[in-house]
């Protein structure tokens, strides 16, 4: 085994710290808050495993996602992302916890890449990991199930207004040069547009 080869099956996802205001900075990247089920997805050749936040193997509940993930062009891969139930209009369904209802659609939004072909990417800055994620997903044909959550371009003002207009419920804020810190709640933040019930929001993850 090569010295730099490293492939853990599960990496504890990095957590989001709730914030009550947005700050505009060139060092920050913004993404959409989708409110789905946070998962870590690993791919070893054709075998895809879906792990819950706590590291439980929940692949049997998400066979459709696992099947679609097999089309990502990588032999060894660890992705951080969310499984989101979408309404027919494309917006995340309000009730993500209950069983998937009729007419809704389930897909995986990847937002980070933690390991690719045995290379540990966690120490790399966020923007580089994102760049690689774009490269990987460029070749994914079935964009209906496997999707990518991009860093949104444009000024913060525009991003916030567009997000609100499209009916998303908040935004994620990430430091562009920060490494991935498994299980830590520091460099990633979440901001909800509806700040009226902060106590309720805190209990969500």
């Amino acid at each position, binding site marked *: 085994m090569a010295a730099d080869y490293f492939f853990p099956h599960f990496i504890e996802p990095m957590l989001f710290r709730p914030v009550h205001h947005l700050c505009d900075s060139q060092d920050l990247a913004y993404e959409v808050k989708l409110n789905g089920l946070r998962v870590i997805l690993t791919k070893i050749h054709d075998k895809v495993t879906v792990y819950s936040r706590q590291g439980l193997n929940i692949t049997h509940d998400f066979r459709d996602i696992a099947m679609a993930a097999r089309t990502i062009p990588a032999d060894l891969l660890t992705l951080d992302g969310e499984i989101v139930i979408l309404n027919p209009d494309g917006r995340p369904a309000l009730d993500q916890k209950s069983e998937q209802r009729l007419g809704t659609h389930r897909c995986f939004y990847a937002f980070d890449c933690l390991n690719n*072909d045995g290379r540990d990417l966690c120490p790399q800055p966020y923007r580089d990991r994102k760049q690689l994620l774009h490269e990987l997903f460029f070749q994914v044909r079935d964009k209906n199930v496997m999707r990518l959550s991009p860093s949104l371009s444009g000024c913060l003002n525009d991003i916030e207004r567009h997000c609100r207009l499209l009916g998303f419920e908040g935004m994620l804020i990430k430091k562009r040069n920060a490494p991935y810190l498994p299980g830590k709640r520091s460099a990633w933040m979440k901001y909800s547009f509806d700040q009226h019930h902060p106590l309720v929001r805190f209990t969500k993850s």
Partner: protein
Amino acid sequence: MRPIWKGAISFGLVNIPIGLYSATTSTEDVKFRMLRKTDHSPIKYKRVAETDGKEVAWEEIVKGYEYEKGTYVIFDKDDFEKVDPEKTQRIDIEKFVDLDEVDPIYFSQPYYIEPEKGGDKAYALLCHALKGEKKMGIAKVVIKTKQYLAAVKPKDDMLILEVMHFADELVEPEDLKIPHHKMGDKEMKMACQLVDSMADKWDPEEFKNDYKESVMQMVEKKIASGGKELPSVATKTTKTTKTIDLVAVLQKSLEAAHKGKSKKLPVPAKTISKPTAKSKKLVHPKRKKAA
């Protein structure tokens, strides 16, 4: 296909014998019968008198108009026959109006029109004349005992009849709170960009009645399994439907907004990430697998 009605289109001195055919199939959901749970005996309805609960035979039934609470004026079959519209078996076109003049909200049900024996030439003439003039005929027609308002329209080489609502059948939306705000230019532009980024070609085949399909699937599975309980996974819809990627739409509309801006103010795109030397190295990590 059998015609649901036979008659003639008439206007001026022209008379075109035609048949009407339903252009839509029943839109009803899957039909279920109501049964008694214990022995699956079908449930039947009976007409019973409210006062004593006794069954009332059809011949015993008359119609009453309640003009005051509990007080009725009675009408029987003969009364109704007096006001029944005359069964002319004709679609009497009263006038021709522009095709785009009528608000589509008035159209309720389409029918195909086929020429009957001897009507071919006049049918084709009317169809092409309407097409050339971009007009449709407005007619009154009696089908069974009811009078309808209808439009005779050209569709390719065919004439179709669209049953229409009478003006008094449409409800005035006066009680609804409809906003009449003045929009800011910036907001309007953004909203238009969003609409543009979701714009697509209209393809009616793309949209299916998911509920009906799933219910029929469940029915077929249950028949195949001999009516036994279905395992819970079987009823779950795992079928993937195509759903728009709203996150991608968001990104596209942001890029469009950004482009529009940078035309006016050439400010460098500060938040767009540029591939750095480092990330380029990362991009092609050529399978460095364990040997």
